[in-house]
């Protein structure tokens, strides 16, 4: 690649290489991580580095907007939705279309090679004018962008306000859930509890009348038999409950008889 007249210096080259490596690794981490939350954090890294690159490209306003809108608003929205949808909703490995994964990887890498090769070859002779004069014309980058937005692109700018209002309305309509039945009151819940076949009150805690009060020790009924429901359901599901020592039961029984 021949060196052409550019407006870059060594400092910008250092910033570019550090930030571009971080941005590409963030993008790769986003595609490759199995959990959606990790993907969200990786792409936040990419977006922050892109903001730094915007500032290096004499676009400080866009860099700030990138940090505020993308890493601040959009990614946090993604994280909130991940909390609603379920943090550990990972991908299924079943392919609905046979060979789709391999084919798409091959096509994507091919697209990348073509794009990178074409761009790198096509832009070798370009000279960079630099934005210093364009930024200085109105007194700064923000003023220059404001000048363009409120003169040449005024109609588009007004239309984006309509777009934002419509998007907010659409999100509210989509996320709204109409309640068809009245929510159950405390009285209804209580009636429900006593009508059902379950235990109406609190379940006995583990270890009642037993020799230990660890969570895996079942409570003992007055006749000395263990009550399985006193053990928390997860422990019961793992069948980790401590077996009742009948010698202990007899001992407790003798102690209470003796008194």
């Amino acid at each position: 690649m021949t060196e052409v007249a550019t407006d870059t210096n060594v400092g910008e080259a250092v910033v570019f290489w550090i930030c571009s490596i971080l941005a590409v690794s963030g993008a790769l981490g986003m595609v490759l991580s199995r959990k959606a939350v990790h993907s969200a954090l990786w792409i936040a890294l990419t977006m922050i580095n892109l903001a730094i690159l915007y500032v290096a490209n004499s676009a400080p306003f866009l860099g700030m907007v990138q940090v505020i809108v993308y890493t601040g608003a959009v990614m946090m929205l993604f994280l909130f939705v991940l909390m609603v949808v379920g943090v550990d909703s990972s991908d299924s490995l079943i392919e609905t279309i046979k060979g789709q994964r391999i084919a798409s990887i091959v096509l994507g890498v091919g697209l990348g090679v073509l794009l990178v090769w074409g761009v790198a070859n096509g832009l070798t002779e370009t000279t960079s004018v630099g934005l210093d004069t364009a930024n200085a014309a109105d007194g700064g980058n923000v003023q220059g962008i404001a000048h363009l937005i409120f003169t040449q692109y005024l109609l588009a700018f007004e239309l984006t306000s309509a777009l934002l209002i419509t998007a907010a309305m659409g999100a509210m309509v989509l996320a709204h859930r109409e309640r068809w039945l009245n929510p159950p009151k405390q009285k209804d819940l209580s009636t429900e509890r006593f009508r059902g076949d379950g235990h109406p009150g609190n379940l006995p805690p583990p270890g009642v009348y037993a020799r230990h009060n660890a969570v895996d020790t079942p409570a003992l009924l007055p006749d000395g038999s263990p009550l399985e429901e006193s053990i928390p359901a997860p422990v019961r599901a793992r069948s980790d409950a401590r077996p009742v020592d009948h010698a202990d039961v007899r001992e407790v029984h003798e102690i209470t008889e003796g008194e």
Partner: protein
Amino acid sequence: MNPSNYVVLSALLFSIGTIGVLVRRNAIIVFMSVELMLNAANLAFVAFARMNGNLDGQVVAFFVMVVAASEVVVGLAIIVTIFRTRRSASVDEPNLLKY
């Protein structure tokens, strides 16, 4: 350093985003990949604006950000609605319109 390096980086990020859209099944990750592609296009706009000494590219990138923000809002609302009815965030699950 040639400023066209920025455009090369943008092409690289765009292709990674494409691979993400094609390979991943989780609708939210697919959506994040679309966001990555939009960001790559923005980087190309900003780099070309700098090369041409013209602020129009930055204005277009600004509009892309606005449209992307509203797109994210509506898209995530649709994902949440589908998740409520189908209990799944996979893009393979909603096949009710297939037959």
